[in-house]
């Protein structure tokens, strides 16, 4: 049997599979198959499995099985969609399945951008399936996926509702035309506190400044977020720097401040969502936390932006390049960009909806929430918040390192 010479594209794919893959090599391969890749990318999602397999697929794109397999795997953060507390069902998802016949396998397995990425990175680089067709990632992590070629371009023909994207979310630096991402929700890195205990210790029931958080009377009773951007952003803003445009020195100054508060024992713990439980038991009186979480706690707890400014972050839906149910995923995105559906979810999770028209739709769902600053912030609120500076992957690693070192890792 003689070996038939391979086409350049096929040879590139074989080489890619044989060599242990580095991201750079992947990009090289993508470059070789560039033309074919672009063609496949443009066509993907449009015609389903038969079409995308006839065109030579980009090595990073998976075959779309949406038409034969009527389901979609969605990985999201915990407590980030409407839940019927009695049945445990997700009402909007159920309505989606009833309407389209596409079942949604919804999992809450994104707890930390870095950890989730570390978990699936090897598969993404070798082009293996990660069994997730939609993932929800914060801006900077979404940017990293796009830069690395791990995100599939969205077929806007299937997502006509993408036109409902609020103007504030258009033209972001990492995805200027929103070719790869659609925001899921935004929220604030803000202060949260136990009203009664704060009154007892500081004699006030509102927290407005980091100075109060650093008050020795709260020693050992405060926690900060392990999300570097939220914690460091708030500290930098308090020090007078601009978190969306800062220098190395300004970052160092903020790390030094953080370090001294940790070393003195002022900060009890630096964690993710865990702080919610600690606030509930009263072990912790005040936190830097996420706005939506505080609402789940109820009226005994306060939430507010620091006077010097809070952090505004956005989580994005994106489709991994290795997703095998791309069209179904796009159908889901389209559904959630219907203002009424968006308002329904927002009413539950109490984060900021990126969908224009959700505010009007909210009037029909829960009028009391229409003026809620945490779901539909006005200009004053937005002016008092920062979006963290976009970092290069190298800067990101360096800054993460210094942050983690200060918080004891």
């Amino acid at each position, binding site marked *: 049997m003689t070996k038939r010479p391979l086409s350049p594209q096929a040879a590139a794919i074989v080489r890619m599979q044989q060599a242990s893959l*580095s*991201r*750079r090599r992947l990009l090289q391969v993508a470059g070789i198959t560039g033309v074919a890749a672009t063609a496949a990318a443009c066509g993907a999602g449009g015609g389903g499995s038969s079409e995308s397999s006839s065109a030579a697929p980009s090595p990073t794109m998976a075959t779309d099985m949406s038409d034969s397999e009527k389901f979609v795997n969605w990985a999201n953060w915990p407590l980030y969609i409407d839940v019927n507390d009695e049945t445990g069902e997700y009402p909007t998802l159920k309505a989606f399945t009833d309407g389209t016949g596409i079942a949604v396998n919804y999992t809450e397995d994104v707890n*930390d951008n*870095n*950890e989730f*990425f*570390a*978990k699936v*990175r090897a598969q993404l680089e070798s082009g293996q399936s990660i069994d997730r067709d939609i993932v929800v990632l914060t801006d900077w992590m979404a940017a990293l996926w796009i830069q690395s070629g791990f995100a599939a371009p969205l077929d806007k023909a299937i997502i006509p509702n993408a036109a409902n994207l609020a103007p504030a979310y258009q033209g972001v630096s990492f995805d200027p035309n929103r070719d790869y991402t659609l925001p899921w929700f935004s929220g604030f890195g803000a202060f949260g506190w136990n009203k009664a205990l704060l009154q007892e210790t500081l004699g006030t029931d509102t927290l407005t400044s980091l100075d109060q958080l650093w008050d020795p009377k709260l020693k*050992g009773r405060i926690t900060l977020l392990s999300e570097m951007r939220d914690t460091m952003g708030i500290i930098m803003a308090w020090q007078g720097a601009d978190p969306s445009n800062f220098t190395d020195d300004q970052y160092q100054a903020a790390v030094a401040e953080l370090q001294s508060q*940790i*070393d003195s*024992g002022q*900060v*009890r*713990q*630096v964690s993710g969502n*865990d702080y919610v*439980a*600690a606030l509930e*038991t*009263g*072990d912790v009186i005040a936190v830097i936390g996420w706005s939506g979480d505080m609402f789940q706690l109820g009226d005994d707890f306060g939430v507010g932006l620091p006077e010097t400014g809070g952090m505004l972050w956005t989580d994005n839906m994106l489709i991994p390049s290795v997703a095998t149910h791309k069209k179904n995923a796009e159908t889901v995105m389209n559904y959630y960009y219907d203002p009424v559906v968006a308002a329904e979810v927002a009413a539950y999770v109490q984060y900021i909806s990126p969908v224009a028209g959700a505010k009007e739709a909210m009037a029909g769902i829960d009028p009391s929430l229409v003026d809620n600053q945490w779901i539909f912030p006005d200009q004053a609120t937005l002016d008092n918040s920062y979006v963290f500076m976009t970092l290069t*992957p*190298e800067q*990101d*690693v360096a800054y*993460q*390192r210094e942050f*983690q070192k200060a*918080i*004891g*890792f």
Partner: protein
Amino acid sequence: MPALAPTAGGSAVVVSGAAAQRRPRTAYLLLIPGLAWLGIFFVVPLVSLFFTSLQAPTDRAGVYQPAFQVGNYLTALQEYWPVFIKSFIYSGIATVLALVIAYPLAYFIAFRAGRWRALLLVLVVAPFFASFLLRTYAWRTILADEGFITSFFNALHLLPENRILNTPIAVVLGLTYNFLPFMILPLYAALERIDPRLIEAASDLYASPFTGFRKVIWPLSLPGVVAGTLLTFIPASGDYINATLLGAPSDRMVGNAIQTNFLQFRDYPIASALSFILMAIILAVVFVYIRRAGTEDLV
């Protein structure tokens, strides 16, 4: 034994000639599953980890290339030696605490429990039916600032920081609690094997209960002590859950350093180097310990 062997072998020689030849092969065949298991799930990952620990960074963050960068080990040690020391202090204290708690308990189960013995053993193992993570979370409620335990000790002014949770005390308590069964079971197994008549003989020979314990029970239970301390100390040294959930930022252990390097920094070489250093230190400690305990042939 040598005197008996020829007779036993001699009488069976005709019948088992073929069987005797087959026996070694059967033994090797029986070894295959175990060796394959070790090969696939221990040796291969270990080798891969070793090569990872020598990789060098590229100009892209989080991407590494094969190299022979021994300096990774130096970097890891330089940056994390205090964390290593802290880890071994925490796990050392936890091991001693576990021994102190487990020994009387195992002794009671082995000699005094009578018909309750089986039930007590089940109770020792019972915590394993709930997830490790959940049980550690439960300690956060138990040790809460306004909880009974913390309030009690606070009333006596015994707590330097007026709390237990998020202090080294909670980390050590968590480690002790989580690995206690690994101490109790080998101790029980060793104690249970002791012939009670030896203890009676000791008292017949006018040994006080304490001397009887020191001269008879303790030496005979040593294999259990060694096994129990190792089974507690080794996993406790590498644990990161207790430090994460029960500790403060200043209480992180080596496990946390490895986890952070792997998952947060995506610095796989340093994380691998840390794992190897941890493994080397533990092996050295175990080696010295077993030598000192003089029980190489018992463990």
